[in-house]
């Protein structure tokens, strides 16, 4: 029989401020780095690809006809290698998309380090559901 206090997570230190501060820091880094990459991509695009970034028709037909922006990791990687502004912007968007997941992964590790096993299991489960839907989505897209 466990002591009654065990149910309330009494084995963990009283305040999980460390967990929150760490998660906040990781999100902050994700936000700042994606903003930096996005701006870099935009500047590179303006300078190197005036045909795309300065074009005169932002109408739907024009945007739809383009339809050749990078949308696979390989294309993004290739594009960055060639100094493509669009590819760099997509990389920034990807960093942004992955930031909430990085925050969740950080909280899973932080909960584990605090021996808060219940929340370690919960956050790991959420993480696997998200990673599972990444894989399923990628395969079916």
């Amino acid at each position, binding site marked *: 029989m466990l002591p009654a*206090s065990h*149910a*309330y*997570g*009494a084995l963990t230190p009283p*305040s*999980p*401020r460390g*967990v*929150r*501060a760490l*998660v*906040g820091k990781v*999100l902050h880094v*994700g*936000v700042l780095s*994606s903003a930096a990459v*996005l*701006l870099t*991509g*935009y500047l590179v695009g303006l300078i190197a690809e005036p045909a795309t*970034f*300065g*074009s005169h028709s*932002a109408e*739907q037909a024009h*945007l739809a006809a383009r339809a050749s*922006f*990078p*949308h*696979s990791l390989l294309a993004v990687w290739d594009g960055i290698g060639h100094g493509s502004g*669009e590819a760099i*912007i*997509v990389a*920034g*968007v990807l960093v*942004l*998309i*992955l*930031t*909430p*997941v990085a*925050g*969740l992964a950080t*909280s899973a590790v932080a909960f584990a380090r605090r021996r808060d096993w*219940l*929340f370690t299991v*919960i*956050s790991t*489960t*959420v993480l696997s*559901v*998200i990673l*599972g*839907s*990444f894989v399923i*989505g*990628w395969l*079916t*897209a």
Partner: protein
Amino acid sequence: MTIVELSLVLLAISIAAGVLGALLGLGGGFVIVPVLTLVFHLDIRLAIGTSIVAVAATSSAGAAINVSESITNLRVATFLALATTLGAVTGALLAGVFDARFLFALFGIVLALSGVQMLRTRPVTTVKVPVSLIKDRVPAMQAVRASGNIAEGAVRGRHLADRLALHSAYYDESEGREVPYVVVQTGLGLALMYLAGTMSGLLGIGSGALKVPAMDLAMHIPMKVSTATSNLLIGLTASASAVVYFARGDIDPLIAGPVAIGVLVGATQGSKMLRNIRSDRLRVLFVIVLGTVAAQMLWKGIG
């Protein structure tokens, strides 16, 4: 209009969307999608892809500021994310089974009803909660701890929240004091989050509009904490689906780029405003916006 001009217009609109989205826990998709489709006549596919990026941006920028200040309740968010992410997967699997127009109409009606409900004052029962139950407190709570009586809330359905140590406290700048709170009806909240997640998977929307009322009405979480926590939650489901949109080629850098930058700036500002705004004003603002979102949904369902 050149691409540069388009980017500047998108930037301005996205800043506004970011402020509102972060303040209200809605993610900003409710501004981005109508603007891109109705004003710029953009393909709905690209509009939704962009809106997903906007939600991820609002969520990350907002939580980066509010998690460490404990306005965002990380434990509540983590626990409820179980239901929202599983719901989103369920919704994606069920896509096409139900008539989308019926779902939009239903969603609109549910939102309108929750808006009305949110304006009614709820009866508050004062209960004594042992301080040992509050794990997520901040140091200034020592004074409260001494008094032994720490928060108000209904008694029913509190046990799961006790076990999970979901009760918490946040510092409210507008009131100049620490606000302790007790989380109730956790099971009901979890079920509602599953439904909200399923809706977002089915309809490709953020469904923060359903998550905030669920936390406020069912779980009795303070308004500010509800919007900030909803903000963190919708980022996780947005991440999961954004990868699909990216792989499908629905995220156009020339549109999503300026929107992402604008939303990051706006959401950072909106999250700082969240600390200072008065809770009753936040509630009224939320209900007004909820009304317009409900109207959007009804329009899609009936129009």
